[in-house]
């Protein structure tokens, strides 16, 4: 074998703490290495050309690049190899940046370590083989999980591009949080006026199949060929026939159910359509409130329904769909502020959340858009907004900034003044975070034009005193304690990951962070991709996002799906397991431990049982390779011999520099 070694300086990123020329020089002594050099930026165009030229000039059949993490540039260098006519799998990388130069300052030790990493890479490379991809078909349908604004955007874009979309929404209607909001910042335009038409488009688009009141049960398969099971929860209403006339709601005697759409500030009937613009506009029965379902008595809705679509016997249904890609747009939940005992733990009726306040201000909300205190229906004259409730607070496990609370608080303060001109608003904030188009101007407007009193400091406690609530906080700019007697306190609660997000992530085989938000493939460069091919992300399931970002991500995820679907055949990764039939004794232990069902039993010509890998199903984990006692099934590119070569190189490496 003829190996070339390229040691990258990465400017000073590596060269500052690693003697790159010395590493290149030493590498000449490694077995089969015939060419070494060190370059300033190996990933740059001249750097890549240098590799290509060296391959041709020195007739190299394998390349070691010592530079950054392979997670960063492995694909780049593999393409360079291909341009030079080498198989892409004849590349090995030594990570001398993230694992060496950036984590240690001792140049001498770093240099030794860098050389050893190069020698490991070369040792492995000597055992590499060219690998070739197989091609397989793509199902050009996409599953969108979540019908908030991000999911809606993604679904519409894919549908408009001509692809079939299956949308699964957990709630009774799509629209997500945006459907509950009164106005949007910084334009203060009506939220439902801009979202409503998009919701209608979803309902009417011929390429979109919508399953509301449904959840994803199971996802199997792989990019291009996912098998999805959807659980359609029982609504006790036959939606094919329901016209959404609302006659049932008028007559339902069970009227004291928690109104989830109105965030619990009002009550609703057991059979209910959450709001007039709901999509789909269908009634559903809440089994916890329904007398018929609980006690077998009532059935009024069934009697009054003009289309006779009430079905008390309805059960959950499992549907299966085949798709080629998945977009997760499952959004976020509001932080549960009951952990803040010093703010009343949710027990004070006039200390409410910002989303409850949106419903109070919303013309289609329970008060018809008149701001009234939940306790006594009085119009509040002094409204205090407390920011960072469940944000930037490590003590409650939420150290992150939710990002949009500063802006919606400013909006709510402005709207408060609009609704109640003789009111005073106070905003307790820690820092105003408004880095968006027109955002900072908006918060300034709240203060300059609307006279909202901004106070820089947290609130320590809120307690009732007579008819009011004493809000005791700090104004660190004044350098002391402040107290306001408020009529209404609005807690700007932060965002947290949607409940069950981790469980869904496990179904999609993607990772999530310690807060339950989904992990993108790269926080900068792959913001809507995941580490699982064919699964994309949009909106707040990745972390708190405002509306424009969520919409942008919805479109971005859709664009990724379209790119995927632009090919009729996909190439399978050749880094999959492969059975050496002559070593296989047919015990099929590999098949028993494979998480993907990628190994099947076959009989050879002699009638002997053997294992065989289904290449498109194999994900390349290598569990089978460890299971097989004969070493008959080997994960390509990570074979026993390749890893043993690395171990041997490392444990027997000569350190005499």
């Amino acid at each position, binding site marked *: 074998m003829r190996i070339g070694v390229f040691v990258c300086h990465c400017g000073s990123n590596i060269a500052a703490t690693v003697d790159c020329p010395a590493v290149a020089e030493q590498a000449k002594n490694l077995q089969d290495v015939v060419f070494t050099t060190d370059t300033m930026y190996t990933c740059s165009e001249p750097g890549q050309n240098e590799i290509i030229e060296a391959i041709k000039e020195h007739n190299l059949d394998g390349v070691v690049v010592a530079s950054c993490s392979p997670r960063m540039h492995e694909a780049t260098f593999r393409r360079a190899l291909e341009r030079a006519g080498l198989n892409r799998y004849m590349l090995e990388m030594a990570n001398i940046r993230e694992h060496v130069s950036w984590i240690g300052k001792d140049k001498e030790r770093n240099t030794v370590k860098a050389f050893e990493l190069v020698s490991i890479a070369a040792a492995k490379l000597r055992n590499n083989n060219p690998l070739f991809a197989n091609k397989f078909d793509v199902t050009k349908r996409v599953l969108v999980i979540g019908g908030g604004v991000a999911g809606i955007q993604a679904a519409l874009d894919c549908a408009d591009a001509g692809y079939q979309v299956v949308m699964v929404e957990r709630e009774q209607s799509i629209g997500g949080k945006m459907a509950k909001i009164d106005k949007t910042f910084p334009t203060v335009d009506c939220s439902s006026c801009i979202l409503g038409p998009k919701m209608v488009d979803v309902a009417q688009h011929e390429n979109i199949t919508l399953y509301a009141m449904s959840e994803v049960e199971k996802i199997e398969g792989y990019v291009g060929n996912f098998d999805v099971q959807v659980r359609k929860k029982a609504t006790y209403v036959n939606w094919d026939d329901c016209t959404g006339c609302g006659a049932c709601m008028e007559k339902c005697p069970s009227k004291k159910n928690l109104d989830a759409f109105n965030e619990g500030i009002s009550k609703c009937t057991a059979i209910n359509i959450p709001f007039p613009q709901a999509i789909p506009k269908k009634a559903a029965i809440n089994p916890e409130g329904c007398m018929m379902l609980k006690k077998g008595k009532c059935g009024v809705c069934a009697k009054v329904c003009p289309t006779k679509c009430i079905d008390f016997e309805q059960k959950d249904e499992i549907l299966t769909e085949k798709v080629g890609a998945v977009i997760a747009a499952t959004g976020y939940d509001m932080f549960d502020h009951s952990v803040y*005992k*010093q703010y009343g*733990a949710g027990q004070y009726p006039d200390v409410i959340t910002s989303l409850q306040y949106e419903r109070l201000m919303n013309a289609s909300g329970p008060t018809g858009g008149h701001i009234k205190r939940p306790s006594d229906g009085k119009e509040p004259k002094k409204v205090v907004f407390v920011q960072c409730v469940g944000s930037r607070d490590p003590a409650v496990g939420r150290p992150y900034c939710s990002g949009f609370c500063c802006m919606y608080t400013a909006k709510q303060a402005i709207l408060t003044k609009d609704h109640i001109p003789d009111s005073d608003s106070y905003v307790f904030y820690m820092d105003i975070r408004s880095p968006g188009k027109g955002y900072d101007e908006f918060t300034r407007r709240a203060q300059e034009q609307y006279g909202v009193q901004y106070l820089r400091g947290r609130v320590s*406690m809120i*307690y*009732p*005193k*007579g008819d009011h609530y004493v809000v005791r906080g700090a104004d660190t700019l004044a350098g002391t304690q402040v107290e306001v007697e408020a009529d209404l306190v609005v807690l700007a609660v932060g965002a947290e990951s949607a409940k069950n997000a981790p469980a869904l992530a496990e179904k999609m085989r993607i990772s999530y962070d310690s807060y339950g938000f989904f992990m993108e493939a790269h926080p900068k460069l792959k913001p809507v991709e995941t580490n699982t091919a064919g699964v994309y992300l949009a909106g707040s399931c990745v972390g708190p996002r405002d509306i424009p970002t969520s919409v942008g991500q919805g479109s971005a995820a859709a664009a990724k799906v379209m790119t995927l679907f632009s090919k009729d055949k996909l190439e399978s990764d050749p880094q999959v397991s492969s059975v050496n039939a002559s070593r296989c004794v047919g015990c099929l232990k590999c098949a028993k431990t494979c998480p993907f069902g990628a190994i099947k039993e076959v009989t050879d010509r002699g009638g002997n049982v053997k294992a065989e890998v289904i290449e498109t199903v194999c994900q390349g984990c290598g569990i089978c390779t460890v299971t097989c006692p004969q070493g008959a099934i080997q994960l390509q590119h990570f074979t026993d011999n390749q890893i043993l070569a690395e171990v041997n190189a490392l444990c027997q490496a000569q350190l005499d520099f």
Partner: protein
Amino acid sequence: MSISVGYYPGCSGSGTSVEYDKSTRAVCKKLGIELTEIDDWSCCGSTPAHTVDHTLSAALSARNLVLAAKQGQEEVVTPCPSCLANLRTASHKIEDEAYRPKVEALLDDSCESAATVASTLQLIVEKVGLDAIKKAVVKPLKDLNVACYYGCIMNRPPELMQFDDPENPMAMDKIMEACGATVLPFPLKVECCGAAAGMPKKEIVTELSGRLLNVADSLNTEIIVTACPLCQMNLDLRQGQVNRANGTGYDIPVVYFTQLLGLALGLSADEVGLSKLVVDPTPRLRFAGVL
């Protein structure tokens, strides 16, 4: 039921809060708790010690925990939150193997075996239990509107105290409810009364205790129930000072929870030391039919 624990009365128990000590002993006896006073106990050092030096404070407290262990007590209870805070802190410090030698150096004794410490309030709520209290009540405190005031250090810092909620503790509320009283939602349960500032900085106490009395008054509180000698002293003994400083005229009795609990369990006014209180609670208790 028979519970047996070591007892650390604290210095004020033989002085300004003699009625707390008396009623605590009486109530415990009634509830089947055997309190064995640590023989020859000494002062925990209180606030002055920890404001001077943490190791000194720990050593003064640890002396008692070591003493208790030597006298065969695994657990010690104390009615006083200030003592509790000091003893608990000391207990943590001597559990820390790195810190223990420092304490031992001052104490000139091993802290290897030392008793643990809890409040009598915790003991009564957790070991006796509300059901047992409910059953033992012979004179329900019906028609009595009480506000329970816990003081600032009974439950705080939560990592150290590990008992009840640090912002909205409920132990006394539940005991009073079990005794039949109407418990008002007093929002300043854990606000500070002014603590030991009474002597050196009276205006602090009159301001802070004034706030507490103000809110209690606005809730139409008949009796304030406390669990802390310092709180009780500031609110009761200094209530006159508060009134003079703020131009108010509060007349709210401030009693120890053990006193009311004792009465509900059938003890006499004398047995719980009612006469030691400055603002006389007897008229209200008579009105409510408790006396």
